[in-house]
């Protein structure tokens, strides 16, 4: 396997795995406060799935000769990134619905093509993940739908969530493919290698085209006055997200970057003695078996 291909794959899979486990936090916030026991169970199962997805992806990266510990170290020291979206706060219950609908929707748009990417272990992990993600997107949509059909306060909560999550969701697809904000990304090479199958702007357009009709079902207004159907192109025209903001958040200056990373590092550090204990116990048992 060519070294450059291997390195790029590790970076991409790791970033994806990190996004899953950091992504547990903004929604995990609301497990304790979920407004019904049914919603509590759904959310708990969803956040649990994200831990599972992170785990599948780390394992896929491990087939390339890096360990999970090494990858976590890269995350904890900010050498590898995770999706910028998780650096925004979840301020109300509706944000949980908006994340399911928009963020998981954007993730699925990104990920479905990867089920056919050139690296088998990554593709296989993505097959499993995409199956489970469709539950995530549907539960998010249904949670929002319940709000928009509820009291005026609930409907306002849903609209407020869409207002705050729309542009960060568009930014999830990364910088544009053309123009001055192209940022020396890896798109072209990764597409040639078959570990990325569509460009950022293609995927972003696909996401907008899919999401606008859904917003109409919800009865919510996408916060973009210039959003309209372009019959000639056969696509919606829309206002792009603020890429300067995206770059700032990626660099670490988003509302929750420091908080998310500190939480992650604390969990890892606090758990060190447990991991060591289990390893020590296993070593003792092995020694006993060998002595016997």
């Amino acid at each position: 396997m060519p070294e450059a291909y291997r390195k790029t794959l590790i970076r991409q899979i790791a970033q994806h795995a990190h996004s899953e486990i950091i992504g547990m936090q903004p929604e995990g916030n609301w497990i304790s406060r979920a407004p019904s026991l049914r919603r509590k169970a759904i959310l708990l199962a969803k956040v649990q799935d994200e831990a599972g997805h992170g785990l599948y992806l780390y394992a896929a990266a491990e087939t390339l000769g890096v360990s999970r510990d090494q990858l976590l170290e890269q995350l904890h020291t900010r050498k590898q990134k995770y999706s910028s979206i998780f650096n925004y706060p979840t301020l109300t219950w509706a944000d949980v619905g908006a994340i399911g609908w928009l963020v998981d929707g954007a993730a699925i748009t990104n990920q479905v093509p990867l089920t056919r990417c050139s690296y088998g272990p990554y593709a296989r992990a993505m097959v499993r993940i995409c199956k489970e993600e469709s539950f995530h997107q549907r539960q998010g949509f249904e949670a929002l739908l319940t709000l928009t059909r509820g009291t005026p306060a609930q409907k306002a909560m849903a609209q407020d969530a869409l207002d705050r999550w729309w542009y960060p969701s568009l930014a999830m697809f990364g910088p544009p493919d053309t123009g001055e904000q192209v940022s020396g990304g890896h798109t072209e090479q990764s597409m040639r290698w078959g570990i990325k199958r569509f460009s950022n702007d293609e995927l972003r357009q696909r996401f907008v085209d899919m999401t606008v009709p859904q917003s109409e079902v919800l009865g919510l207004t996408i916060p973009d006055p210039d959003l309209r159907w372009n019959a000639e192109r056969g696509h919606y025209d829309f206002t792009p997200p603020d890429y300067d903001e995206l770059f700032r958040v990626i660099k670490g200056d988003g509302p929750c970057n420091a908080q998310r990373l500190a939480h992650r590092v604390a969990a890892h550090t606090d758990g060190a003695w447990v991991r060591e204990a289990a390893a020590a116990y296993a070593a003792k048992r092995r020694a006993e078996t060998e002595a016997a």
Partner: protein
Amino acid sequence: MTTPRVAYALALGDDALVLAQRLGEWVARAPELEEDVALANIALDLLGQARTLLRYAGDLEGAGRDEDALAYWRDDRDFRNALLVELPNGDFAVTMARQLVFAAYQYELYDRLRASSDDTLAAVAGKAVKEVHYHRDHATQWVLRLGDGTDESRRRMVAGLATVWPYADELFQPDDATAALVADGVAVDPPTLREPWTSYVEGVLAEAGLELPEAAAPRSGGRRGLHTEHLGFLLAEMQHLHRSHPGATW
């Protein structure tokens, strides 16, 4: 009307609900990703038990309260859970000590409750006994590893057991609501669970090379609605959103 049977279903349901809430706090904080998944599974099992039991309590009561009305609109003085489950998580050793104590109790309880003359409770127990069998095993595996792992893990495991031990006794105390049901074969008499529970837990501690914690004054009151200070905070967090929107559907 709060009949003994309602109170009994509430007590079992509240135990499961409050512990599910506590275990949910571990998500995204566990020592390893695999353990995040494991703890969430246990929390989901308990939440499922709680929902069924609260729904049943509401049906029996006949006042139109569903699972959410009971979970979100009762204050801490009306909760019937044992104090053990509301204790803060502490470190992983405290949580595993509590899991061992509680899951071993729940296992004996549900194993016997399968023979209840109340068909609903018998059905709940039939499903739950398999779940808590796994919970008990999970806690056992961890108590063995922490007890016989490193010096630090052993020290923490000893401390964790000492933290939860005074709260174990309450699980086996007879209470008035239950006494009335035992005669009809509806409920399991709590004191009869003590012996099999002790035998299991002592076996695990012995295998882990841990001493039984020293006897401490037992703490109780939960079944009568006299809780620790911790439950009020737990409920405030759990209930505030639901209560902020009375009558709303989620």
